[in-house]
């Protein structure tokens, strides 16, 4: 497939568990973005990468959230000791240009995380 893929599509975790969400961007896309989307709201920026460099992580809500993109392609968003307020849809997007450039973003279908 040519689009952005995310896995798993749905994740149910018990409070306190660690989770890892995966994003496969479009091949060759330089920039990769993570967003959190709560019900009835727009996507909220979490962090972004340009190749393997994490250039902005100002949107990560706490130090329980960690993202990586070690080889400049696949990215993983990890949430440690999940809390109920972490329940949301996590969106990944990629862009062919530099993060500050003019290119639009291509979004994956999202991972719906439910913390019980």
């Amino acid at each position: 497939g040519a689009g952005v893929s995310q896995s798993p599509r749905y994740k149910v975790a018990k409070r306190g568990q660690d989770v890892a969400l995966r994003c496969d961007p479009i091949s060759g896309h330089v920039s990769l973005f993570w967003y959190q989307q709560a019900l009835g709201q727009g996507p909220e920026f979490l962090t972004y990468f340009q190749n393997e460099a994490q250039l902005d992580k100002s949107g990560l809500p706490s130090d329980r959230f960690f993202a990586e993109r070690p080889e400049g392609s696949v990215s993983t968003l990890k949430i440690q000791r999940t809390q109920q307020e972490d329940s949301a849809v996590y969106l990944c997007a990629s862009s062919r240009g530099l993060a500050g450039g003019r290119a639009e973003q291509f979004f994956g279908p999202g991972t719906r995380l439910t913390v019980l």
Partner: protein
Amino acid sequence: AQSVAQPEDQVNVAEGNPLTVKCTYSVSGNPYLFWYVQYPNRGLQFLLKYITGDNLVKGSYGFEAEFNKSQTSFHLKKPSALVSDSALYFCAVRGSNAGKSTFGDGTTLTVKP
């Protein structure tokens, strides 16, 4: 700080009528503005963008948007709505050379036959 406002949670129009979905923004420097559409159980899809140049930009599916710098607005328009246009629409902004995008809370467009 940058922000986006979509003042209408819901817009209802009859098929064949023109539609407008409103968006205003605040950003430092020159804005890059985007519209995305989200269909049920699908990811956000890019519709159109304003980067520079002509204030009227045309995008996918017959949509267009007008950039108005003095009013800091970027309203989405279509001359004749289709039932299939019914979806959730998001406006987004980022400053030039800024990596972070800010999205509005979305407007649900319903087109009735």
